[in-house]
């Protein structure tokens, strides 16, 4: 039976660990060997809304495994503009490709796509709902940085109310358990209560604060987020909080050397460029681990055993 990657909610801890192990094996494999693994296979990349990183990352992953890529990154030149249903588009693309990765502004699109075809479907973001490959690559990055996922002190900083990436990563870390979280945000962008409540029984603890400085001094990892203008119904509210948290090299003076900073990118003002050369900056390696993890996802869903 075909498998898909639609939502973190579908994945057990064992499955997540399996992806982490597979990504590690992919990373240690000689490039020559890797390039043979998906030779002759085709990835269809269906992006109904703009994305730079996710789309290029999947395409890079497929090329590095020797496969080919087709698709679109905007719908203006496709039958979608003529009113074609999503299910019809998916059934058509199924004839052209071996696996589909889809990003769409409506929630539930990836699930519907998976139900409409018999080839694997990867969700690369469905509205504000899920983006599971981002969470898997975040977990892989954490494991690469610290050698483990459990037992860390992790601060989430910025837009904790609307950030899909943060919500999903927090839920995944909750499955691993044994973490200490610090939620750093303006009052208006606090972590939703259902996510805080969801940590009950996970073996994780959390505190909430508006103070970034203490998080930098006391945590192992800071996960920064962009405050997303498009999420605010009231632009004045956005203006009040848009620059609430900004890390620069000066702010990092004196913080423990172990501190690492991740960010799903793109960044705006929340991390100054002078942080980039410091030992703390982990967000560009994070992008690289994204390609590794997406190779693991493609291999797994296409049933190529390693």
């Amino acid at each position: 039976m075909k498998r898909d990657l639609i939502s973190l909610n579908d994945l057990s801890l064992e499955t997540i660990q399996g992806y982490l192990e597979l990504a590690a094996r992919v990373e240690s494999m000689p490039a020559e060997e890797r390039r043979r693994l998906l030779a002759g296979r085709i990835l269809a990349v269906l992006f109904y809304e703009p994305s730079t990183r996710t789309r290029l990352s999947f395409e890079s992953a497929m090329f590095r495994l020797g496969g080919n890529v087709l698709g679109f990154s905007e719908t203006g030149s496709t039958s979608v503009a003529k009113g074609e249903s999503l299910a019809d588009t998916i059934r058509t693309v199924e004839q052209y490709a071996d696996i589909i990765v889809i990003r769409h502004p409506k929630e539930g699109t990836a699930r519907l796509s998976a139900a409409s075809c018999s080839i694997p479907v990867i969700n690369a973001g469905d509205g504000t709902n899920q983006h599971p490959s981002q969470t898997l690559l975040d977990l892989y990055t954490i494991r690469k940085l610290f050698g483990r996922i459990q037992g860390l002190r992790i601060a989430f900083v910025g837009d904790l109310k609307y950030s899909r990436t943060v919500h999903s990563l927090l839920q995944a870390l909750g499955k691993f358990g044994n973490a200490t979280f610090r939620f750093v945000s303006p009052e208006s962008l606090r972590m939703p209560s259902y996510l805080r409540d969801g940590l009950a029984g996970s073996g994780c603890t959390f505190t909430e604060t508006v103070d970034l400085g203490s998080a930098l001094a006391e945590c192992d990892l800071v996960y920064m987020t962009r405050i997303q203008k498009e999420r605010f119904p009231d632009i004045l509210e956005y203006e009040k909080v848009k620059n609430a948290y900004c890390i620069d090299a000066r702010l990092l003076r004196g913080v423990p050397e172990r501190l690492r900073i991740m960010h799903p990118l793109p960044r705006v003002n929340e991390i100054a460029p002078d942080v980039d050369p410091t030992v703390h900056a982990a967000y560009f390696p994070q992008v690289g681990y994204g390609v590794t993890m997406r190779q693991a996802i493609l291999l797994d869903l296409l049933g190529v055993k390693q």
Partner: protein
Amino acid sequence: MSTDKNSNPVLHIPKIEEGFVFDHIPAGLGPRVLELLRSYPELAEAVVTVGLNYRSGKLGSKDMLKIEVTDLPESLIRLISLVGPGITIKKISGFEVVRKLGLELPDAIDNLARCRNPNCVTNTERHVAARFERSGKAASYRCLFCERVFDLKELELLLP
């Protein structure tokens, strides 16, 4: 006149020879159940009797509804289980109860309700039926597509 069936053998609702009795309807919900029944064209001409506010040992007070038909649409039973879990449906034949069905909240709701999330694909694509699964909490359901969780009362039922 008393409506207690133990103290008075004459009920306001007459017995029916063939059909179905909807019993243990929480008081006030009878009209809603009637509304669901009336939404089915195939039941439009059936004889229906409704009684409201009977005294009930179990519920305090209850509504009751009788319909003289040989069959009930399956989807109607599933809809009624959503608005009134705990309702008992009795099949009557020859004035006798021949079968009893106690309605419970279902584990899944399939094509019977609309997702409340306007950005859910079930509301934006044609011909996509919304499906929900019971979430952890008592009467909460998670949309299988957008994964949002709703209280059952928030969901708009799809009538035929």
